[in-house]
């Protein structure tokens, strides 16, 4: 089973990368872009076949290592 973990900077945490991307988009003439946030996606191949267990497992991984909950939030989805 494949799980996808999306890790994003928490609201309120400065995201200079997102800011820089937004600035660059504006520079390229893309108008109407509001706030830009840059995070990361981590794809996991899990042996677990039960979706509920797989999701719980991926969430545990995210809390323990994949995200730093001081500055990041995460969400897990299954394919």
């Amino acid at each position, binding site marked *: 089973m494949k799980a996808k973990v999306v890790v994003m900077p928490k609201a309120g*945490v*400065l995201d*200079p*990368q997102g800011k*820089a991307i937004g600035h660059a988009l504006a520079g390229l003439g893309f108008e109407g872009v509001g706030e830009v946030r840059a995070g990361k996606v981590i794809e996991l191949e899990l042996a677990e076949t039960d979706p509920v267990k797989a999701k719980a497992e991926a969430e545990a991984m995210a809390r*323990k*290592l994949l995200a*730093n909950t*001081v*500055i990041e939030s995460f969400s897990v989805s299954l394919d």
Partner: protein
Amino acid sequence: MQAGIVMFPGTNRERDMALALQRATGRKPAILWHRDTELPAGTDLVVLPGGFSYGDYLRCGAMAAQSPIMRAIHEFAGRGGHVLGVCNGFQMLAEAGLLPGALLRNASLRFLSMDCHMRVERTDTAYTGRFQRGQIFRSTMAHGDGNYFADEATLDRLEGEGLVALRYTTADGQVTEAANLNGSARNIAGILSPNLRVLGLMPHPENQVDPLIDGTDGLPLFESLAEALATA
């Protein structure tokens, strides 16, 4: 003083740190391995040196913070042991929850390798006894992720409890935005644990211990440790 420097895969300032400790104490520190599960008996100081542990992949210090030796370091700190984290080591301490907050990417989004100046905020710690209170000293930084972040409540608590050890200043001691090269909250360069025994800082005072190389501005930090932790 018996010091141990922990090597993680990707650590690269362990030699610099060993030279600094040796200069101050006259004794070679032990080199510890990240897979060790115990610290050598009689360890007085554990140092997490700079580098790119695990390539800084995922987040700086994140994977090192989960390595076997960190459990032993947690226990050591819990018993009142002294732990120094420099640069990547500071990032590990934050990731491991031994110090609050996190180190974000530098505000400029660039790796910064340059001189910086810091003000010593208190001198009643094992790390700062040889400095004067309010002393400004020069060091060098070399990091991409040294932008100290904590929520306002945490920052207020750190300030209130006097746990901000070092603050970025200009050469003449002004706490300004221009002096705050990486964009850290409140110009914070280094913080202490509530018992004052765990110190994390981003710059590299271990590179300022030799008059032939880059001066000795950083030496008092190591001499302070040597004095405070001298084996009776």
